[in-house]
């Protein structure tokens, strides 16, 4: 996998990386909490010397009510500075609960779009954006159940959060597509309501059916419905800086090297046709 990524760098405009792969997090309160994995760090350093890198974190759990892990955030920021990351993104979700001995949900759980959660996030995102030297993006989450009685729609929630904090959006079109299939709503209507001028990065990916649902497995090629959403969104996202194809390592055999590059090629064709940006990238989860 690493040799594949290194071999195709010349074909890419940037690389989206999960920085958490380069360290072992030994837990809050432990001295030398983040133990760097030299080999992984060396790969990241090498990539960053050849191409721009953007960081896509998985461990902040920014929506956890009782945890705001500033130690983790500082580590993330240090890596962003070291790799000259153009932006950092995180998920609009939570995985971690509990102080002291934490419990992890093992899946990015959605938050209810209520004003209480919005206020919580506004404080946290403001804190982050003040100390970050690059942009901070939040990604729309995938969810398999829906909260009843939400006070805001996801679009309203994201718009308000961006307006009040200056943060931006990582629009995951496969997440949106997945949610629309599973919960029967119109993606275009969602996109009309979302402030697309806040979208700096777009994720595209493949998914698989499971138990009567479509899942965000990041396996296989990008689906037609997602390509159509990309064509719709790219000309409307006026500050868009990059489109990233996400794929799970297990998808490597399924798609093969050519199949993976084909997804980037298709994304690039759409971007070239419909936007002034030229950035397409890969992210392996």
């Amino acid at each position, binding site marked *: 996998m690493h040799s594949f990524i290194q071999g195709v760098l010349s074909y890419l405009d940037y690389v989206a990386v999960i920085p*958490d792969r380069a360290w072992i997090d030994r837990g809050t309160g432990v001295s030398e909490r983040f133990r760097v994995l030299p080999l992984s760090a060396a790969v990241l350093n090498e990539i960053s010397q050849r191409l721009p890198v953007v960081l896509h974190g998985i461990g902040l759990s920014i929506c956890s009510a009782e945890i705001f892990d500033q130690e983790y955030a500082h580590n993330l920021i240090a890596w962003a500075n070291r790799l000259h990351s153009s932006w950092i993104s995180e998920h609009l979700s939570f995985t971690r609960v509990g102080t002291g001995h*934490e419990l992890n949900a093992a*899946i990015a759980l959605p938050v209810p779009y209520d004003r209480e959660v919005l206020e919580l996030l506004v404080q946290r995102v403001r804190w982050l954006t003040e100390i970050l030297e690059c942009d901070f993006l939040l990604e729309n989450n995938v969810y398999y*159940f829906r909260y009843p009685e939400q006070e805001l729609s996801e679009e309203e929630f994201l718009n308000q959060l961006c307006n009040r904090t200056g943060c931006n959006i990582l629009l995951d079109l496969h997440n949106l597509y997945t949610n629309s299939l599973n919960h029967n709503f119109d993606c275009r209507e969602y996109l009309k309501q979302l402030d697309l001028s806040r979208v700096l990065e777009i994720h595209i990916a493949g998914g698989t059916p499971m138990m009567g649902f479509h899942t965000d497995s990041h396996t296989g090629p990008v689906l037609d419905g997602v390509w159509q959403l990309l064509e719709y969104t790219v000309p409307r996202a006026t500050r868009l800086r990059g489109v990233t194809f996400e794929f799970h390592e297990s998808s490597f055999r399924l798609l093969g090297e050519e199949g993976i590059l084909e997804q980037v090629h298709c994304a690039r064709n759409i971007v070239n046709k419909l936007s002034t940006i030229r950035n397409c990238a890969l992210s392996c989860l």
Partner: protein
Amino acid sequence: MSLSAFQRALVELTLSPRLARRLYGGDLGVIDTYNLSERERRRLSDIVRQAGMSVNCTIARGNGFEAIGDLFPMTCVLLEPILRDLLDDLWEDVRPSNYQFTGEADAFVTRVQQKMAQGELSIEYLDEIFAYELTCLNMAQEMRNQTNTACEIERFVEFRHSPQSLLLELSKLNSPPSGLPQGSYCARLILRGMKFEVQMLSAQPGSSPCLLPVAEL
């Protein structure tokens, strides 16, 4: 405080389908212990009735066990008849405690070792393959901590059955044929950077040493 309690309850329900089923069945005692608002109680009762909650729980479990499948694929093939029960037990006993899932593979190793020591796992080839994959894991962990990325790590693993026959079949996630002849075999494992190489050093009389396909971490 209420939002924290709500999130904890949702995580507990995600990690324990048994708990979610109790709430689905109307046992509100499941969420009585949390300090929840009426709306939060209604939300949780609604969520466990949605089909998507089953998907949510299944994906969480899959994520938690992903490392086991990645690091012990061949062991899992051999354990197939009892794998589901073994993972069910493990999921009940070992709750994920960090986002990197560093504890799940260790817990799996300990559980398999315990069961083997107690004679509960009399599965053909299992001890050899488990030892082989455990060695690979240890080498990979050692390599991850190396500062010299060009270094080479070497280990030897003994087999009672032809590693070539076992590994080639299991690498395709197929069970090897039963009743392979016993012998004394030794495989040399080499890890260079992120590339694994397996060499069979001693083979059955009359056959020549072979090189198994290179794998990449």
